[in-house]
């Protein structure tokens, strides 16, 4: 196994506030790493630094051994790093199918081939398979804005997988999703992880979701790594119980 993602000594300051204070970790190929910690501990800021949405104040990010710090999000995405957002981020006026085609179209060909090629960029089949996989069949041609919250969450996740990513960072995929849909979502994520050897980093507050999905869990507190280990080790770790899980 080799490390898909290597993060070393990432720091991010906002004025006088240090949101992320020297975080280092690796994620191995095919692994699902959970990232937990109290609100404001720097999880999302760390994500944004890794993904190029924020420029880290210090530190390095490597994807497949290649230094990617400072790349724009769109460039990083075409290298195979995808993400979902904490708040809903689908394109409400586009149909479910169009959302998914958009999510894949920039990963192939050039600007010119996209202008003169097929309107669906040859992705309609792949998009329909993804729709089937996430059980959104009956909604394919509905505008994404008309879907329920949970359905939009599923679509959001489906979009992240359209380009066939190596690494996906999921920011609270379970937030606001009802229990039955949640087990669906978990099952889908686990299946993609198995079948495509996609590597995940998952931020989540739903402990049951994290502990059952992830092979390793990293706990952050006050911008630093507090603990890292298997879910059962993390559950028993006194420092983690003190800072986050509670007694």
């Amino acid at each position: 196994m080799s490390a898909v993602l290597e993060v070393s000594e990432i720091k991010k300051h906002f004025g006088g506030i240090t949101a992320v204070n020297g975080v280092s970790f690796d994620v191995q190929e095919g692994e699902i790493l959970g990232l937990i910690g109290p609100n404001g501990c720097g999880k999302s800021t760390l994500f944004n630094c890794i993904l190029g949405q924020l420029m880290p104040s210090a530190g390095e990010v490597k994807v497949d051994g290649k230094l990617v710090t400072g790349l724009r999000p769109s460039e990083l995405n075409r290298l195979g790093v995808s993400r979902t957002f904490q708040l809903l981020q689908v394109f409400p006026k586009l149909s479910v199918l169009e959302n998914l085609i958009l999510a894949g179209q920039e990963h192939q060909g050039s600007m010119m081939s996209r202008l003169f090629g097929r309107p669906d960029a040859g992705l309609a089949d792949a998009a329909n398979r993804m729709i089937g996989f996430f059980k959104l069949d009956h909604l394919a041609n509905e505008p994404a804005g008309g879907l329920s919250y949970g359905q939009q969450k599923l679509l959001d996740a489906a979009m992240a997988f359209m380009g066939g990513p190596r690494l996906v960072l999921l920011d609270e995929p379970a937030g606001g999703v009802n229990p039955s849909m949640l087990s669906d979502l978990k099952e889908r994520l686990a299946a993609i992880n198995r079948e495509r050897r996609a590597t995940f980093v998952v931020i989540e507050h739903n402990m049951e979701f994290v502990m059952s999905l992830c092979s390793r869990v990293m706990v952050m507190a006050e911008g630093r790594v507090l603990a890292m280990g298997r879910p059962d080790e993390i559950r028993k770790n006194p420092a983690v119980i003190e800072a986050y899980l509670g007694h």
Partner: protein
Amino acid sequence: MSAIGKYIRPALGLAVVAALILVPMSFSRYGLFILSQWAVMTIAAMGLNLTLGYAGQVSLAQGAFVGVGAYAAAIMTTHGLPLASALVVAMLLCFAIGWLLGYPALRVQHHYLAFVTLAFSTLAFLVFRNESWLTGGTYGISNIPRPHIFGFATGKPLPFYYVCLGMLGLVTSATWWLIRSPWGRAFVALRENPIRAQSLGVDTRRYTLMAFAIGSALGGVAGAIYAPLTQYIDPVPFDLSLSLDLLMMVIVGGSGSFFGPFLGAMIAVLLPEWLRFTEGYYLLLYAIAVILLLIWSPTGILGILDRYLADRRTKVASAQRALAKSRLETAQ
């Protein structure tokens, strides 16, 4: 029902095209001029609809691009160059300037961007008025020739109307192609959620610049037809008010809907003519009509149609649900 529905749209489209070709044959000189002007303004508004309606980038400079295109065509054709070459130059020139004007849009958005483009609009007007060695200054450029196309003279109003209509047809097809291509999807993504678009690999910088450049190029095309239509140009028609008019056409027609500019331009060009019998009051009535329309339907005329269709679909769906429910109850 659905089989008929499938044919209604193409049939309607064909009927409109046929009417646009046949009905004006009996029109007066003035009627033809107004209709030609509608075609030209529709082209410019389609360009702005691309930049603003689809890609969500506010521009108050579309009128200036029409001016750039018109002056390019006027200068070239009065020096004996063919209109076709002037069209290409106008398009490329506006594409290039539009591309450059897109750079501020990478830093600022919405009303800030409107101000940047407003400044460009003013700058262009000053160039048209003051650089008289090139543009003829306030005297403008007169005796702009109309072209011969495959040996046919288009000097008379009717043939030149067909030039305008043909150009509108070409631009409509090209824009339709663009909107249906992955680029159209990327433009909408840019408007709706640029951050999410970026995270999906969409190069938002390049698409923003393209949206500006292509929209501006269509402004240039409109200008290059406008010059031989009026056969005389001076700086006044290309001041800020044209940009505002074009903005209004896009919004009144329905920003971001493909046929919005056709309706918007129709209202902006034809309604003042129909209201001419009210003499001094026509601007007032026109203004009130536009205000009422936007209060009633902020998404423009096509927004009304959309709402009607959505209402009908909801009614049909709930009728079906009620039917299914009653069947279920009788089954029990």
